[in-house]
């Protein structure tokens, strides 16, 4: 039996973060992961992350994964891949299947960072080939470079459903509809808005009633549901699709903790069966910790902080840190974690309808029901201003913990005030240089540079564009509304693709000036 000071189960964002904190203080650490590559689900995340600098905001998920692997290598973390942990006992003995053999290990401490598994819902035809998890779609597109299908229907409007729908569009798939049984969109409004402006219709209070096909999916029928989630007869709508994607939540993979005798609870706010833990992840079994989604569903940014907390705690547990040193480290990490858990989407607000922003502004109900802020609602938000010449228009309408825009502006025109979740506003003395850094920095793709009146009856709008083929200067097409409807003719007058924009191209289109505050996307045909 081999002995380690720390055995970590799972080499995802939280497991690796824990390993880094322990290994860099000299602890003997091993990380087991059943996959053939480390990094967990981070390498499938191609969007820019939210948060602040400390949370790696505006960096794409897979780049954060690369940074984490580099940091782990520098710290001397040992990762055993292709290793499935099949047993964990209260004395911290660990059974691992590697290849065809079972090996036994003993840890002085164990950190379980096994993450979560996707939920599913059932309906007639749900077992047909072509019905897949949203995670599967991400894996296919972003790891293996293959489209899950040509025409896809997405079920689930949480952040996963919204982000993966956008990724499907980026991969060249058609998303025919985004469906959710809930009456309101569950994820960030900005994620919904970037899907909606591409023309994807949202069907809230709808569910799938049948997948069609004999050998594989050929279509899908959805129905409206009543307040008890029962389908209403006569409301059926059928779409021709080859793929149905489910993004209906995640459940913690906490079986190992249960096996080890850790006290568990069924906690819907955390996503299901979770261990009862203290503020820093220690379970009821001394020396066994849980970090990341296994102890409650959140996202990768918080999982990384929780992992670091567990890594700090085991270092102190084994005498590599004094209690004072531990307290100081944890205090900083707690601050980072707290700031991520603020705003309308904070864990404590899960399921609540929030009707006003922290600033006292009415939340856009259209955004919650259709995925976009309507023309008559948009003007009430502080980032939406009218100035002479080119200026930013920030269509950020919900309190979420994110602030890269205020650091991005070299002229310091943008501020989110004292709180990371406040809505950004444009300072009165703003002297916009039209550099585009704010547009590219916004993880929600909610910033536009607008010149409302060029003097010749036209306006220009600069928008973030992450699709191929990239339109060229001189291309003509249409300006699309926030709901993806064709509004007016548009001509591409500038395309910028700087390295600093990190693959967010800035496309500037010229439209008749009456559409300056309405057109938010471009299509050639």
């Amino acid at each position, binding site marked *: 039996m081999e002995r380690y000071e720390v055995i970590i189960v799972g080499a995802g964002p939280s497991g690796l973060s824990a390993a880094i904190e322990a290994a860099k203080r000299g602890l003997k650490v091993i990380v087991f992961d*059943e*996959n*053939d590559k480390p990094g967990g689900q981070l390498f499938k995340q*191609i969007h820019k992350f939210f948060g602040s600098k400390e949370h790696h905001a505006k960096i*794409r998920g897979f780049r954060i994964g690369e940074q984490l692997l580099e940091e782990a290598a520098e710290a001397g973390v040992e990762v055993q891949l292709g290793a499935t942990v099949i047993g964990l006992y209260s004395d911290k003995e660990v059974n691992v299947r590697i290849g065809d053999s079972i090996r036994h290990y003993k840890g002085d401490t164990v950190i379980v960072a096994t993450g979560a*598994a*996707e939920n599913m819902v059932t309906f007639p035809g749900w*077992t*047909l*080939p*072509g*019905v*897949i*998890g949203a*995670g*599967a779609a991400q*894996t*296919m*597109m*972003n790891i*293996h*470079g*293959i*489209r899950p*299908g*040509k025409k896809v229907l997405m079920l689930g409007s949480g952040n996963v459903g919204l982000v993966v729908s956008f990724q499907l569009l*980026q*991969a*060249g798939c058609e998303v025919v509809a985004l469906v959710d049984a809930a009456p309101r969109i569950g994820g960030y409004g900005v994620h919904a808005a970037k899907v909606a402006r591409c023309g994807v219709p949202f069907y809230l209070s709808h569910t799938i009633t049948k997948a069609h096909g004999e*050998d*594989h999916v050929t279509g899908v029928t959805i129905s409206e549901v009543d307040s008890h989630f029962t389908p209403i007869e006569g409301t059926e709508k059928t779409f021709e699709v080859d793929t149905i994607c489910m993004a209906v939540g995640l459940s913690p993979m906490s079986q190992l903790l249960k096996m080890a005798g850790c006290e568990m609870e069924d906690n819907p706010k955390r996503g299901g069966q979770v261990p009862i833990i203290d503020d820093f992840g220690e379970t009821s079994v001394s020396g066994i910790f849980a970090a990341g989604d296994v102890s409650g569903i959140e996202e990768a940014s918080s999982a990384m902080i929780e992992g670091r907390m567990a890594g700090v705690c085991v270092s102190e547990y084994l005498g590599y840190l004094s209690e004072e040193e531990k307290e100081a480290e944890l205090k900083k990490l707690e601050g980072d974690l707290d700031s991520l858990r603020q705003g309308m989407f904070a864990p404590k607000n899960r399921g609540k309808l929030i009707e006003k922003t922290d600033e006292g502004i009415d939340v856009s109900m259209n955004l919650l029901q259709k995925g976009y802020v309507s023309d008559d609602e948009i003007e009430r938000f502080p980032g939406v201003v009218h100035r002479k010449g080119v200026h930013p228009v920030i269509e950020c309408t919900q309190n979420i913990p994110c602030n890269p825009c205020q650091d991005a502006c070299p002229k310091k025109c943008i501020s989110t005030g004292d709180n990371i979740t406040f809505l950004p506003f444009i300072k009165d003395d703003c002297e916009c240089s039209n550099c585009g850094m704010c547009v590219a920095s916004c993880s929600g793709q909610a910033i536009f540079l607008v010149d409302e009146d060029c003097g010749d009856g036209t306006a220009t709008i600069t928008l973030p564009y*992450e*699709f*191929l083929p*990239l339109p060229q200067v001189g291309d003509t097409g249409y300006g699309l509304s926030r709901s993806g409807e064709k509004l007016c003719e548009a001509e591409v007058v500038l395309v910028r693709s700087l390295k600093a924009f990190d*693959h967010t191209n800035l496309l500037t289109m010229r439209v008749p000036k009456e559409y300056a505050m309405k057109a938010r996307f471009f299509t050639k045909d």
Partner: protein
Amino acid sequence: MNRIEEHPILGKKEERQEVTFTFDGRELKGFEGEPIAIALKANGVLIHRYTKKEHKPRGIFCAIGRCTDCVMVVDGKPNIRTCVTPLKAGMVVKTQNGVEV
């Protein structure tokens, strides 16, 4: 063709070695090291197995080795999770019926 030739964020895939394998006796091509399931998908194969009791088709569901919906008979061994098993030249892949060969 459902392979993504160029991705707006991820760019072009690195050059990979094309290999030949068989699926139910048919000769197909895929890239060495990619999951068998992906190579099959690139060739339009969606059905991986039929269930034991009701003989219903199953294909890829989770794509990360969790759900076991995509298992097939590979080189004579049944219940191989094709979504996490790398493709090698000359592999013999067969549709699985039930839970055995």
